[in-house]
């Protein structure tokens, strides 16, 4: 079964991770624009970050046979820095036009401040203008209230719930997200957020419709193999193969294909790997024999 990790920050992961993900069956990923562990202090560093997601990171993923898509947006943490936020909002209409950008995200609330709300609402408008779905980060602190407010903002903004993926759900938020008609993401983490046994319980209770799982792996302690591990946990718990495939492959495709920039049929075909390829003169290899699938 092919697997899709719809939320992973590969820019802070290694080529070993890419190899392990490919070996575990991950065939496609979405890399959302987020923060990078510490606040950026210039608009220009965002622009270079966006360019790296579209350029070098996509090339790196492809070198391991993995389809790479990304989302563009200003994350809520950095939305609180008005100097940076306004400049990034100005850039976004450009970056939302780029190939392989399948949503506006991660957007939403973190501290649930008025500044976050302004930037969140503005980006929903940008998404509507660009006919893109939105990927929403929900806060870790004050999660339940933050998620309720998130759903209220989505309702008021008039974006279709079906174009909205609300991420980082838990036992106390999932029902309201599903009831709203939005898609529901779950970040499977080693210690915090969600874990595999709890995810199994949620799937047994709520089924597979509009439910996604991801690793949200980044620069912290996290695990880029959480999608395959969750698929295995679901299988072991007796969840039907069709439901597992819906959650771990078909749902992310159906959701992000609404962008019109993700070809579901192309994802079914293996991405031929040619490790002799260079990106702006750079190879991911360091003296290894290049793999060439079609040679």
């Amino acid at each position, binding site marked *: 079964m092919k697997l899709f990790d719809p939320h992973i920050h590969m820019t802070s992961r290694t080529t070993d991770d890419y190899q392990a993900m490919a070996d575990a069956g991950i065939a496609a990923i979405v890399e959302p624009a987020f923060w990078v*562990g*510490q*606040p950026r*202090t210039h608009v220009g560093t965002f622009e270079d970050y966006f360019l790296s997601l579209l350029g070098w990171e996509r090339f790196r993923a492809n070198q391991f046979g993995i389809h790479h898509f990304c989302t563009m947006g200003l994350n809520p*943490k950095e939305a*609180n*820095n008005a100097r940076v936020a306004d400049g990034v909002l100005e850039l976004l209409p450009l970056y939302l036009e780029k190939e392989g950008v399948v949503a506006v995200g991660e957007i939403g609330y*973190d*501290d*649930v*401040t008025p500044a976050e709300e302004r930037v969140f609402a503005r980006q929903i408008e940008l998404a509507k203008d660009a006919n893109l779905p939105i990927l929403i980060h929900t806060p*870790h*602190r*004050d*999660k*339940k*209230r933050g998620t309720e407010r998130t759903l209220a903002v989505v309702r008021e903004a008039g974006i279709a719930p079906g174009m909205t993926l609300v991420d980082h759900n*838990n*036992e*106390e938020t999932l029902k309201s997200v599903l009831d709203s008609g939005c898609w529901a993401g779950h970040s499977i983490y080693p210690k915090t957020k969600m874990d595999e046994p*709890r995810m199994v319980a949620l799937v047994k209770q709520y089924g597979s419709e509009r439910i996604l799982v991801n690793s949200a792996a980044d620069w*912290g302690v996290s695990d880029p193999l959480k999608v395959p591990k969750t698929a295995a946990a679901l299988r072991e718990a007796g969840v039907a193969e069709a439901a597992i495939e819906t959650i771990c492959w078909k749902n992310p495709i159906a959701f992000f294909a609404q962008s019109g920039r993700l070809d579901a049929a192309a994802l079914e075909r293996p991405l031929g790997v040619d490790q002799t390829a260079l990106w702006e003169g750079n190879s991911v290899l360091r003296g290894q024999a290049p793999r060439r699938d079609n040679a």
Partner: protein
Amino acid sequence: MAETARLTEELVRANGAASLVERAGAAVMAPAGIPFRALFAGVTRRLGAAAGCTPLPPPELVSSARPHWTLADWTRLWLVLRALEHVPAVDAPALVLRTFEGGELGEQESVLRTLTLLPEPPRFTETGVAACRTNAKRVFEAIACDNPFPAAHFPDLAFNQMVMKAVFVEAPVARIEGLAARRTPELLRMARDYASERRAASRPVPSDVALILGELS
């Protein structure tokens, strides 16, 4: 406030920072320049072994200063106080924010610990609130713990988020100053909701949640 700068200068001169004070003259007059920022960055290295000592605060400052402030903290405080004398008042918040943003972890700690001794401290609330978004626990603790600034100046929303983040990053809630007076119904709700979320996940509720709720003393 010139008095705070004078007392601070006396303290740092007496504890081994005299030569650094001597060489600061031109740099502090142009705090937007690289020489000032470089001097600020190099404090710990220039002070050598003395940087980490914790001099007793002068009696006049003892209500705001804290005994864990190091000579490096005091020296950086003195640099900021002098720099603030050379920028228009309207630019003061931006100078402190930029000094914080441009700092490595130790520089950031010094800025945050000593915010309370800057002239008209409420002007620097944005720096304190921004600091709470750090991922570095020692930087977070520099603003959240053993520091009178947040309780005195943070708006409710920022204060509540800081307290909840302390639980998340396991910074000791017991060391948040002025918590008792800021224990609003909204903060209690956030703490109760978090406890509920942990129980729903079959995970233990951190004992510091009870501290926020006033169930422990």
